[in-house]
């Protein structure tokens, strides 16, 4: 049973000074689920994803990854095999060639000298080229990353994630700064790859349409609390209206 639950979130809370970002949030994620986190801005989506990525620590509560508390994944390299995160574009090192940003996904497995050597003669090049092919950028391998467009950079980040192969993919607004065509492209690719690799995805999105189109389960947050948690096809327009309403009518 616990093998099926790749992620258990138990009563986690997080405050910033006096502000409550998350209050006593709990839910369980099964392996292979595609989850969209939705909710108005300031609802706590980024905070939740950063907690899961251990960029932040919760004030109380615990996160259990594959049957083990996340705090016990002290080794960063082992944790990287479990959880990977993709955020907005500025996550890449702009001055590096694209291929090195992609190969950075292998750093957890590489020793220091191999990774240093790879900056001069790229190692495991075939695998990296294959990842770039999958995201549709096979001819950009040696370009400077900062010269790529926003959508292309996001695909490079996706290729890096392909190299890293974490069991759980966290994505914070992965398409926020892209035009609709590109956004469709990226989300389609992300969810397709995740299905092929049996990965679990939790992505925060500002667009409910995308959430319904590409994801199987929607978790809605509002004011740091769970607003609803439903299969994508069960979410009603009324619920969404409530979710995004500025002030609740009492």
């Amino acid at each position: 049973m616990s093998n099926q639950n790749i992620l258990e979130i138990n009563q986690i809370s997080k405050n910033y000074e006096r502000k409550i970002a998350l209050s006593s949030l709990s839910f369980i994620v099964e392996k292979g689920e595609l989850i969209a986190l939705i909710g108005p801005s300031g609802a706590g989506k980024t905070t939740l994803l950063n907690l899961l990525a251990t960029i932040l620590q919760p004030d109380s509560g615990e996160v259990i990854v594959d049957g083990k508390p996340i705090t016990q994944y002290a080794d960063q390299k082992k944790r990287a095999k479990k959880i990977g995160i993709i955020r907005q574009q500025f996550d890449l090192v702009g001055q590096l060639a694209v291929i090195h940003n992609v190969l950075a996904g292998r750093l957890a497995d590489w020793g220091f000298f191999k990774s240093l050597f790879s900056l001069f003669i790229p190692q495991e090049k075939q695998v990296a080229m294959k990842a770039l092919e999958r995201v549709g950028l096979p001819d950009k391998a040696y370009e400077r990353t900062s010269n790529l467009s926003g959508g292309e950079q996001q695909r490079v980040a996706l290729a890096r994630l392909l190299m890293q192969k974490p069991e759980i993919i966290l994505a914070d607004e992965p398409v926020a700064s892209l035009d609709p065509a590109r956004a469709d492209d990226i989300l389609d690719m992300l969810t397709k790859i995740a299905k092929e690799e049996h990965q679990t995805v939790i992505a925060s999105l500002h667009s409910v349409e995308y959430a319904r189109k590409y994801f199987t389960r929607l978790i809605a947050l509002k004011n740091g609390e769970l607003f609803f948690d439903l299969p994508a096809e069960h979410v009603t327009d009324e619920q969404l209206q409530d979710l995004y309403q500025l002030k609740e009518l009492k």
Partner: protein
Amino acid sequence: MLSFDLHKRKVLTLFLLLLFAWSLFGVNWQEGVMHSSGIGPAAEIFAAMFTPDLSLDILILAIESSWLTLAYATAGMSLALILALIIGILASGVLASGKRSRTYMKGSFRGVLGFMRAIHELVWAWLFVASFGLSPYAAIFALAIPYGGILGRIFADMINDVPEEPILALKATGASRLQCLFYGYLPSVKNSMISYTMYRYECAVRSSAIMSFVGLGGLGYQIQLSLNDLHYDEVWTFIYFLIILVILIDGWSNMLRKRMQL
């Protein structure tokens, strides 16, 4: 908060202006500032500007001294660059494991860099000449230490200014601190490091020329000898060579910068 900062800045500006005004009173304008014999030598020196000595033996001497000046500057800068990279990276604190050790590391290595550049290269040159005698090593170390201190400090600051997000992303992919250094920090600052090093190299050539006054040979030494002999036309030959050196390096650094922008 912001208005307070602005206010503080104004106070600081006023203070600096007052300090400047006060410093003007500190200079004794009546005596000493001008040459006692008046305008004569100055006119002679500036007249010679248009008639540099271009005889063959002076040109050969100028080329030899330029070479020496450039060689000292290059060797000194190379050593400075190595020192700056090592100490600068340590002083940035990015290799430290925890918050405490990071503060400790930053503090101590920045202290080392501060000590290196607190003493001017001429003073180092005197010290080294006094301890080892007139040897090329004296010139090279005298340049390398303060320049290493300056470069190291700037490198450390550049590394600390690298945006946080790409580094956090690298850490999330499981990169160690050293891997973050080579995949994140160094590629991000490489171009600025090269630009700044080239600029400092230019300064090092000038310093190297000056340093030869201490008796280490080079353009400065020749300028001093010619000045003593009142051969102002020779002085200008050497000065023009110095200018050419600086311009050449500037051209080279521009070329490098253009290539980096591709």
